[in-house]
């Protein structure tokens, strides 16, 4: 493990000036308000305590099922610090990488206080990478990952977020990717923070000519688990497949704000997210397909399906379209509802108890998205985790 230098001491020149500008701006930035559309439905009545980033990473967490089943490389980030030897950060890079603008309190705080996002490119991407992002501290931390996929190449990255203590934290994760001409990225994000942690995540993926991304997100943990994702279809012919599976229980809020920004011609996005909520959990999905004037021949589709498993739970599902081009094809669908009665009846008529019928139905509901996760061991782990939450709720009479 490397010695941890003081914050900013290894910054490249561009980063140093960006950092100090962000520190200055922070003084004027307030907590966002749920009156703003992009923060609507949330309970923002908490103090994010910025700046409070620790100046050294906490102790490393142990191995677990995900790591044990993993055969590729591992990059560890603890409390925002990249602790794996030989992995550079964007803060030290010669060229500026800034895919997230400093457009609110959290993104500006990230610029000001993140030690530096792990920079994955070239050598780091020759085999599959699992980024193990750990939180140990009650301080607000700023873990980041930037993936630079060179033109014509393939990269496969899984970013898994976890708490290795039961301390409640505020975390501002930022994952960005630049996918070069004719390059392909497979990116899977797994949010598995403890139920005391608030995570205000940002993601930006920029796709250049004929680039493609297969993006999967799994939402398991967090008191507030938010991901504001932008996919920028900059290059012509670029395309994205976006899948999601989330399961909320207890008092969790799982919050997804996905923006598909179609700029180049002949681009395509397919969004497909499935979620379930039980107890007093809330899920939010707002999907925006935005097609610029230049985005002719765009094909863009979004579907969000939600299961409400107990009466105290709720799901907001809001598909949006903003279309400035005239030759495009778009579609959207959104459903929020309880388990299907006809399916329950059919399964019970085959001898299944109502509990096994519902368990099978919940499992089947998520299969469509879980099977999109490219790593089979990870997919199996996700399947067990999601179904395990439902089975536990059944056994405890919460659903």
């Amino acid at each position, binding site marked *: 493990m490397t010695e941890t230098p003081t914050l900013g001491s290894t910054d490249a020149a561009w980063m140093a000036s960006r950092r100090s500008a962000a520190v200055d701006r922070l003084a004027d930035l307030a907590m966002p308000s749920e009156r703003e559309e992009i923060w609507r439905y949330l309970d923002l009545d908490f103090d994010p305590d910025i700046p409070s980033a620790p100046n050294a990473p906490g102790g490393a967490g142990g191995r677990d099922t995900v790591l044990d089943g993993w055969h590729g490389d591992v990059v560890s980030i603890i409390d925002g610090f990249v602790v794996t030897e030989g992995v550079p950060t964007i803060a030290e890079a010669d060229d500026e990488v800034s895919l997230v603008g400093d457009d609110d309190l959290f993104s500006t705080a990230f610029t000001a206080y993140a030690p530096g996002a792990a920079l994955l490119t070239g050598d780091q991407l020759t085999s599959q990478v699992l980024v193990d992002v750990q939180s140990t501290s009650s301080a607000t931390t700023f873990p980041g990952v930037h993936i630079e996929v060179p033109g014509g190449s393939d990269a496969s990255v899984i970013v898994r977020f976890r708490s290795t203590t039961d301390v409640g934290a505020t975390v501002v994760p930022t994952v960005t990717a630049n996918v070069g001409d004719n390059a392909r990225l497979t990116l899977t994000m797994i949010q598995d923070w403890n139920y005391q942690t608030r995570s205000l995540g940002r993601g930006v993926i920029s796709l250049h000519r004929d680039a493609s991304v297969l993006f999967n997100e799994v939402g398991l943990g967090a008191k507030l688990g938010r991901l504001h994702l932008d996919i920028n279809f900059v290059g012509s012919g670029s395309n994205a497949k976006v899948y999601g599976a989330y399961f909320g229980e207890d008092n969790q809020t799982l919050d997804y704000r996905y923006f598909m920004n179609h700029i180049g011609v002949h681009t395509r996005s397919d969004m497909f997210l499935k979620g379930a909520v039980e107890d007093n959990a809330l899920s939010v999905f707002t999907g925006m397909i935005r097609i610029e004037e230049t985005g002719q021949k765009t094909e863009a589709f979004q579907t969000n399906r939600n299961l409400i498993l107990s009466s105290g739970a709720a799901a907001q599902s809001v598909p949006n379209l903003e279309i400035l081009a005239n030759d495009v094809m778009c579609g959207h669908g959104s459903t929020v509802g309880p388990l299907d009665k*006809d*399916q329950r*009846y*059919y*399964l*019970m*008529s*085959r*001898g*299944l*108890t*109502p509990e*096994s*019928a519902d368990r*099978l*139905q919940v*499992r*089947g*509901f*998520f*299969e*469509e998205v879980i099977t999109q996760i490219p790593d089979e061991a990870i997919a199996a782990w996700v399947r067990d985790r999601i179904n395990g939450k439902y089975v536990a709720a059944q056994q405890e009479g919460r659903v």
Partner: protein
Amino acid sequence: MPNALEVRDLHASIGDLNILKGVDLTVPFGEVHAIMGPNGSGKSTLSHVLMGKDEYEVTGFASIDGVDIMGMTVDERSRAGLFEAFQYPTQIPGVTLDDLTAEMAVSNPSDDGFEQRIAAASERLGMDRFRSRAVNVNLSGGEKKRTEMYLLGVASPKIAILDEIDSGLDIDAVREIGDMIESLRSPDRGIVVITHYSRILAYMSPDRIHVMVGGRIVKSGGSEIAEELEAKGYTEYQVANA
């Protein structure tokens, strides 16, 4: 000896709509019966009410092998020995046929014959390529009926009610399914085939044919009834019943 199925004065309604208006039906073990009747006469409703679907207000009596099923839930009726092949089988996305039959076995721990019946029914109906696919999802009409027959073979019930198992089947499949129903005839089982066509009955030897009109069984008899209906339709019964 009790009968496979006994139904006495069964009524079912939804709101103000009376659908079943006093159905009486006895199916002894070892027999195969057919129910024919015009669209909307209540045949599928009878299947669902016997299976215990909770949409209806129900009065009357029904038993399987002498056991009163009226107070039972749907799954209890299944375990008591009732099988309904659905006219419109339900899609279960993300759940494979193998997942379903595995759960059927788990739900009936006292029955250790599942593995053997899964193998036998799969072989007989050529189900191998369907078993890893989601139940009834993206299947053709005929493939869904084949799936229902497969699940019938796996369940091995005391009384099977097959609701239009022959609709949507091609000519060869009608013969195949007709033969299979006849081969499932057993001293431990009764079978009821609900159909609109005498074609499937030609491959079986039904012991009795019942005519259902307006929520009642209005006539019962031998196979001559099927021929008579083919020739004359239901008009005389509907007039008589009006």
